[in-house]
């Protein structure tokens, strides 16, 4: 084994992670796999001041680009990172599909390996206009078709890519063990008085797809139950109007984003219920973090959330459902729910497990194994042969994504 294989992580908003699933993922991969691989992470220059820009983090090299990682600039940001990485890495781990237009050329003209992580089904999101949706939809196609391996973070997304692209995505979720169970001190209770009594908790980006209006509506009708919600309220029309409408209620506490990990863990870890309204995006890091902390989960009833919680949490579709479940579920039942969530998270959602999966995927890609097709090999055996072996029942196997 001569030198270490080099991995480039492209498409994140920089490490050390401050915000966001991809950033935490990048940081944790560096921590876990930094010994085995030589990792370079590309970061957006504008997000850091001159002093903050370190050239390395643990064992990983950091490269800065003078572009933002999100929004329209993500296209040149990702593209330039890919181009640079072609000269300095063996495997490119591209998070997000903004730079996917380059991938056909990379696959054609170079021998570098590409792993792409499709971040949920981006093109479906209401926040994009028609032009952006078209680009992302096409870019996703490019990403899956021209990468050596693609990653979905949820089984439901694997179903979608199987139907659309007839190739099998690898499922690698997120880890949650960077969160810590924190017992609140007296000082914490002073700063956050709601820690004295039980409260339900939700943290997320303030977007209509996260069904924040449903949760707020439900709690407005339940004055006996407290809700603490953290999010970027001021960033949008949707957020500011909800803030105005609901901040007056005594049992609803709306807070701006908390970036200190410890403070966030204090508030989150001591809730008696975690409400998760996301309706899109695969496996949400906020949900797995709540599960890891052993919080009982009340999630929006959509395939992704059911998959993440293995069907063992409570689910809602309307504001009335939320009120009904919270009002009628005994605390003991909720606590048991919390234990089940904790078990799932400790089994599936740790960075060690995730990093090992990435490691295996990198090795697989370096050994030139192609993509796994969705139709099983049995489908290629002619019918007469199957019948002659008395295996005719294997003729028309049900694909895994068709749920009965």
């Amino acid at each position, binding site marked *: 084994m001569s030198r270490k294989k080099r991995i480039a992580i492209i498409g994140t908003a920089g490490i050390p992670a401050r915000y966001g699933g991809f950033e935490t993922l990048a940081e944790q991969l560096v921590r876990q796999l930094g010994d085995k691989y030589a990792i370079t992470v590309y970061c957006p220059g504008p997000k850091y001041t001159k002093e903050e820009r370190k050239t390395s983090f643990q064992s990983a090299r950091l490269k800065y680009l003078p572009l933002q990682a999100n929004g329209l600039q993500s296209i040149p940001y990702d593209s330039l990172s890919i181009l640079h990485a072609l000269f300095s890495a063996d495997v490119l781990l591209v998070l997000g599909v903004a730079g996917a237009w380059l991938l056909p050329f990379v696959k054609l003209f170079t021998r570098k390996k590409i792993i792409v992580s499709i971040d949920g089904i981006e093109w*479906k999101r209401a926040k994009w206009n028609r032009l952006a949706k078209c680009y992302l939809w096409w870019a996703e196609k490019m990403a899956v078709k021209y990468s050596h391996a693609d990653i979905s973070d949820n089984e439901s997304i694997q179903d979608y890519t199987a139907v659309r692209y007839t190739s099998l995505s690898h499922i690698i979720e997120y880890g949650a063990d960077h969160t810590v169970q924190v017992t609140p001190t007296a000082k914490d209770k002073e700063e956050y008085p709601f820690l004295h009594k039980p409260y339900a908790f939700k943290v997320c980006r303030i977007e209509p797809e996260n069904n924040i209006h449903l949760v707020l509506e439900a709690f407005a009708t339940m004055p006996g139950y407290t809700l603490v919600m953290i999010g970027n309220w001021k960033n949008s029309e949707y957020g500011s109007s909800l803030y105005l409408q609901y901040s007056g209620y005594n049992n609803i506490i709306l807070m701006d984003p908390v970036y200190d990990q410890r403070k966030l863990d204090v508030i989150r870890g001591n809730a008696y219920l975690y409400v998760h309204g996301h309706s899109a995006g695969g496996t949400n890091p906020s949900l797995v973090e709540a599960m890891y902390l052993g919080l009982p989960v009340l999630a929006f009833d959509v395939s992704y959330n059911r998959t993440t919680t293995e069907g063992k949490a409570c689910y809602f579709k309307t504001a009335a459902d939320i009120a009904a479940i919270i009002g009628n579920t005994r605390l003991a039942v909720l606590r048991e729910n919390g234990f089940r969530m904790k078990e799932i998270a400790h089994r599936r959602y740790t960075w060690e497990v995730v990093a090992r999966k990435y490691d295996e995927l990198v090795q697989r890609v370096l050994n030139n194994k192609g993509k796994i097709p969705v139709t099983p090999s049995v489908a290629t055996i002619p019918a007469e042969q199957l019948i002659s072996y008395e295996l005719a029942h294997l003729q028309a196997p049900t694909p895994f994504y068709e749920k009965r």
Partner: protein
Amino acid sequence: MNSMIYTILQAMFASMIAGGLAIALLRKYSRYIGLIDKPGKRKVHQQPVPVVGGIAIITGTIAGLLTTHHANLLLQTLPALAGGCLLLFVTGVSDDRFNIKPRYRLLLQLGCAALVAASGIRITSLFGVLGIDEMNTIGQYILTIVVITGVTNAFNLIDGIDGLAGGLAIINLSLLAVLSYWLQQYVLFVLLITTCGAVFIFLRSNVHPARIFMGDGGSLVLGFLMAVAGILLVKEEQLYVRREDARALVLVPAMLALPVFDSLRVYAGRLLRGGSPFQADKTHLHHLFLGLGFTHRKATMTICGIQVLLILIAMLVFRMMDFQWTMVLMASAYLLICSFLKGYISLQKWTQTIRKMEGVN
């Protein structure tokens, strides 16, 4: 100049009145004549609609020409054009009424195109496309016949939603009229203006929801007229104007680009899918817009908008590049718009599929 204005006003007035009268009359009796378009599987409309627009337009045009004595002038100076238009008119109306076999219709179109080519109106040069300039006589004949027939058919195919063929015709005919005035082709000028008037009256009853259609009788004639007028103007311009100052050279292909590229794209698509290029399907540009949920009005206005945009782009680009690359650019712009539309339709279908998959498994 004064007499010209007077002539135009007279011609347009006459054509509009005659056209309007024709529409009113024919609408009432179209059922007895048998000129009704019943809704069918691959048709877009739901009610039976009289297909008398073509007759109305021709009637209006002839009336306008007769009152200004330009009919005689036309027959003297451009007999092939007049004869071809009338012949195609008869063919088209017969096809609307009796459903003539496509091969006979094609034969007649080729015949009319040959007539025009024989009378001296030919495409004489490729102006640098593929490196070719002047061509020999046989080449000129073949190319002219192919182009005229192609444009005529392309225009016939684009008559798919309310107001579209009429709208494009008005844009093209008025632009051709301006060009013909500039190139001092006054007979052609009066003809085009008169036809504009007649088409305008027709359009008033053709916008969504349409009360009449123009049918093959209308679209074949208009397409033929635009093609021949265009070729004539480019040829005349070549004699008197330098290539760099040429306007007809770039504007004529630009205004014909949309219907022609659309038909070519549809034929290519059908061939690629393994079928015959003439089998009916819903892949034209207007079908794509309808598939996106556009109403007839919005789709027509958008397509006419794209037409104007292509013409403007061609005018702008021609200052910077030569003719060949201008054509390439317009073809690319058109194909880009189509892929965007097709992509968005596909995206919408997938959104539905995913919504189903996301509901509790």
